[in-house]
C-alpha cells in the first residue's frame, strides 16, 4: 500500500526506547510512543488493583450470608472496582495506550498534533488516579461508581468528594486525548492518505474521540455539582431542598452511556486491523463499518434514558429512549456481520491476536444481543438493577473491550517492543480467559433473571449454586490475566527479535523498524491505495499444518 522504501540494514539503533535511558527522559517525554508506554504501565496497575477488588467480591459472594467482609467493606469494594475499572482502566485502555502508540504511525505522522498536551493528559490522569486511590485507602467510598444522588450528595459518609474530584480531574485527560486524536486525524495525514483510505482503527478512534470531547465535560460539571452540594450543603440534587435526584441521573447517563462507546469503539477498531491481517483479506464493507462507527457515536448521545426506565421517568420518555436504543443495535450488528464476512475466502491463521478476535466477536454478539433484553421496556422492568445487567455489561466490557485490548497488545507487541512473545503460552492464556470469562458471567444472566439484585452483599440461599460457578470461573479468569503479564515481561529480554513487520501487515505502522525511531519514519510515507490490500503482500508463516 505504500511506496516507502524500507532498508532492513537500518536496524533500530535510534529507536524511541534506546534514545535515552534516564527516568527524566521518560517522565518529560513528548514522544507519543513513550507516553503510550507510560499509560500502559499505569493502566496495567489500575487493572490489577480493580481485579483485586473483583476477586474479593467474588470470594465473598461464594456464601449467601456474605461472611468474608462486612456490609460497608463490600459496598466500598464494588464501588472502587467500578470506579477503577471504568474511569482508570476501560476508558483509557485502548485509546490512551495502543491508540497513542499507533495512531500517529498509522497516519504516517511524526507525532500527535499536540505532544505537550499529550504528556499533560498523562499527568492529569495520574493525579486523578492518585486522588481516587488516596480516597480508597483513607476510608473508601461506597456510593457505587454511578454516584447516585441523594445518597452520594447527602447520606453517604465516606470519601465521596475526593473520589469525585479524582474522576473529575481524570475526565480532562480523556478530553485532551480525544481532542489530540481529532486534530491529528484532521491535519496530519500522510500525503495520499485520504479519508476513504484511513484504516478503520482510525475511524473508530475518530468516533470515540468525538464522544470524549462532547460527553466528558457534561459528567465533569455534574460531578462538580455533586461535590459542591456536599461541601456547601446545597440542594442541587437533594429533594429535601427542592432539588431533583432524577436530573442527576439524566446528566450522569448523558455522558456515561456514550462512555460505553468510548470503550467499545476503539475495541471494534482493533478487530478490523487484526481480522484482516490474519485472514489475509481486505475488509468486507469498509464504508459500512466506518459509517457505523459514526452512527454509533451519534446515536449514543440520544439513548441515555434507557438506564432510567423505572426511575419515575414518564412512560412516553421511556418509549422514545427504548426506540432509540434499538436503533443503536443496528450499526453494531452491521459490524459483526462484516467481520464474519471478511473471513470468507481468506487464508486464516490462528495466532494469539486472532484468537482474541474470535473471542471478541462471539462474546460481543452475545453481549450485544442481551442488550436488546434491556432495551425492551417491559422486560427491563424485571431485569433492571439485577445480575442480568451485570452479566450484560461485563460481556461488553470484559468480553468485548478487554478481549480486544488483549488482542491489540499481542498484535502490536512486536512493534512496541521489537520482540516476539512465546506463542503457545499466549494461546493457552487466550483460551483460559475465554473459558473463565464465560463460566464467570454466563451464570449471572440466569441468577439475574431469577431476581438477584446487583450490589447485594448477602443473598437468598437458592442463588448460591450459580454464584459459586461464577466464582470458580473468576479464578480461572484471574490466572488467565496473570499469565500474559509474566510471558510478556519475559519477552522484553528473551523474546525473539521481531523485525519490522512480523505479521506482514499492511498498516503504515509496520513499514518502519520495530521499535520505531523517535520520529516514527525515516522518510515520510506516501499512500497510494486503500488499506488492507493483503493480496499484494506475501503470506507469513506459510500453511499452519
Amino acid at each position, binding site marked *: 500500500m505504500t511506496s516507502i522504501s524500507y532498508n532492513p540494514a537500518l536496524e533500530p539503533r535510534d529507536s524511541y526506547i534506546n534514545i535515552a535511558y534516564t527516568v527524566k527522559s521518560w517522565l518529560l517525554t513528548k514522544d507519543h510512543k513513550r507516553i503510550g508506554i507510560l499509560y500502559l504501565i499505569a493502566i496495567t496497575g489500575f487493572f490489577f488493583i480493580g481485579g483485586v477488588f473483583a476477586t474479593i467480591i467474588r470470594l465473598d459472594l461464594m456464601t449467601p450470608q456474605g461472611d468474608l467482609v462486612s456490609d460497608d467493606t463490600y459496598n466500598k469494594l464494588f464501588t472502587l472496582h467500578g470506579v477503577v475499572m471504568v474511569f482508570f482502566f476501560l476508558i483509557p485502555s485502548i485509546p490512551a495506550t495502543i491508540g497513542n502508540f499507533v495512531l500517529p504511525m498509522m497516519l504516517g*505522522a*511524526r*507525532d*500527535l*498534533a*499536540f*505532544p505537550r498536551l499529550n504528556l499533560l493528559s498523562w499527568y492529569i490522569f495520574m493525579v486523578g488516579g492518585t486522588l481516587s486511590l488516596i480516597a480508597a485507602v483513607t476510608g473508601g467510598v461506597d456510593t457505587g461508581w454511578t454516584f447516585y444522588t441523594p445518597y452520594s450528595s447527602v447520606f453517604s459518609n465516606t470519601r465521596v468528594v475526593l473520589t469525585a474530584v479524582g474522576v473529575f480531574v481524570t475526565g480532562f485527560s480523556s*478530553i485532551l486525548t480525544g*481532542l489530540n486524536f*481529532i*486534530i*491529528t486525524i*484532521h*491535519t*496530519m*495525514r500522510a*500525503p*495520499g*492518505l*485520504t479519508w476513504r483510505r484511513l484504516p478503520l482503527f482510525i475511524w473508530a478512534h475518530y468516533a470515540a474521540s468525538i464522544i470524549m*470531547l*462532547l*460527553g*466528558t*465535560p*457534561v*459528567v*465533569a*460539571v*455534574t460531578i462538580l*455539582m455533586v461535590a*459542591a452540594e456536599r*461541601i*456547601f*450543603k*446545597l*440542594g*442541587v440534587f437533594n429533594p429535601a*431542598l*427542592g*432539588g*431533583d435526584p432524577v*436530573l442527576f441521573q439524566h*446528566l450522569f447517563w*448523558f455522558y456515561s452511556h456514550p462512555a460505553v462507546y468510548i470503550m467499545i469503539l476503539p475495541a471494534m477498531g482493533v478487530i478490523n486491523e487484526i481480522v484482516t491481517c490474519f485472514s489475509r483479506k481486505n475488509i468486507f464493507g469498509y464504508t459500512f463499518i466506518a459509517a457505523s462507527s459514526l452512527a454509533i457515536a451519534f446515536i449514543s448521545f440520544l439513548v441515555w434514558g434507557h438506564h432510567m426506565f423505572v426511575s419515575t421517568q414518564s412512560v412516553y420518555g421511556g418509549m422514545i429512549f427504548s426506540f432509540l436504543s434499538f436503533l443503536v443495535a443496528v450499526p453494531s450488528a452491521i459490524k459483526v456481520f462484516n467481520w464474519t464476512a471478511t473471513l470468507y475466502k481468506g487464508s486464516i491463521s490462528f495466532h494469539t491476536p486472532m484468537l482474541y478476535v474470535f473471542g471478541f466477536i462471539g462474546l460481543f454478539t452475545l453481549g450485544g444481543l442481551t442488550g436488546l433484553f434491556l432495551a425492551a421496556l417491559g422486560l427491563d422492568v424485571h431485569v433492571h438493577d439485577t445480575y442480568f445487567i451485570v452479566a450484560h455489561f461485563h460481556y461488553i466490557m470484559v468480553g468485548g473491550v478487554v478481549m480486544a485490548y488483549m488482542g491489540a497488545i499481542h498484535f502490536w507487541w512486536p512493534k512496541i517492543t521489537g520482540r516476539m512473545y512465546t506463542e503457545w503460552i499466549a494461546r493457552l492464556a487466550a483460551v483460559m480467559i475465554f473459558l473463565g470469562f464465560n463460566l464467570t458471567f454466563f451464570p449471572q444472566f440466569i441468577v439475574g433473571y431469577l431476581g438477584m439484585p446487583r450490589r447485594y452483599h448477602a443473598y437468598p440461599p437458592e442463588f448460591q449454586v450459580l454464584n459459586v460457578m461464577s466464582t470458580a470461573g473468576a479464578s480461572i479468569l484471574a490466572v488467565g490475566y496473570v499469565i500474559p503479564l509474566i510471558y510478556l515481561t519475559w519477552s522484553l529480554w528473551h523474546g525473539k527479535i521481531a523485525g519490522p513487520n512480523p505479521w506482514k501487515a499492511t498498516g503504515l505502522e509496520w513499514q518502519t523498524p520495530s521499535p520505531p525511531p523517535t*520520529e516514527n519514519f525515516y522518510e*515520510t510515507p506516501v499512500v497510494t491505495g486503500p488499506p488492507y490490500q493483503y493480496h499484494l503482500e506475501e503470506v507469513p508463516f506459510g500453511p499452519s499444518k
Partner: protein
Amino acid sequence: MDQASRGSNRDLSRLEASQILAHQFDDLAQQKEASNLGTWAFLATELMFFGGALTAFVVYRTFYADAFAQASREHMSIPLGTINTAVLLCSSLTVAMGVHYASHGQQRKLIFMLLATIGLALAFLCIKATEYYIEYSHQLVPGLNFHYPPHHHAHPERLTASPPHVELFFCFYFFLTGLHALHMIVGVGIFSFITWKAWRGKYSEQYYNPVECSGLYWHFVDLVWIFLFPLLYLLH
C-alpha cells in the same frame, strides 16, 4: 488543507520558520490549521461543560418558574449586570482589534489592545465581586449565610416564593457566574502571557496564531456571559 499544497510549500516554510515550527508539523500552515482546529474543538468541550450546568438551570427554571423569576426580579442588579455586559463586549472588541493588529505585525498596537483587554477583564471581575459582596450582605449565599427572606429588603411582602427554590436559584447563580469568572481569570492569565511574549517580539505577520486562538477563547467566554445575563438577570 489538501495534500498537494502542503507538499509544494513545505521547503519554503521550513527555511523561514525553523524557530517556531514544532517538529511534528511539516509547515506553518499545517501548524496553524492544527492549533485553530484544536481551539475550536476545545471550545466545543467548553460549550458542553457550560451546557450541562445550563440545562440543569433551565430544568429548575421551568419547575420553579415563579420562585426563580422572583429571585431574579428582587435580588439581581440589572444596572450592574448591564454595565458588566458592556464591559465584556468592549473587551471582545479590543481582542478582535488586537488580533487584527497582530496579523498586520503592528506590535505596539497589539500590546496596547492586550493591556486594554486585561484592564476590561479586571473591571468586569471587580464589578462581579461587588455584586457578590452585596449578595453576601443580603444573606443570599447558599452554603455560607443563606437566610430567606433576608432581613433587609424594601418589600418583604413581595417575597412569597418558597425559600428552598430561591436558594436553588442562588446555587446556580453562584455556580454559573463563578465558573464564568474562573474562565475570565484564566483568560487574564493567558493574555498576560501573550502580552509578555508580544513584548519580547515573538509575534509577526507570519506567526500570531497564539493571539488568534486566545482571542477565540475570549470570544467564547464573552458568549457564555451573553447567555448567562438574560437567563439570570432579565428573565422574570
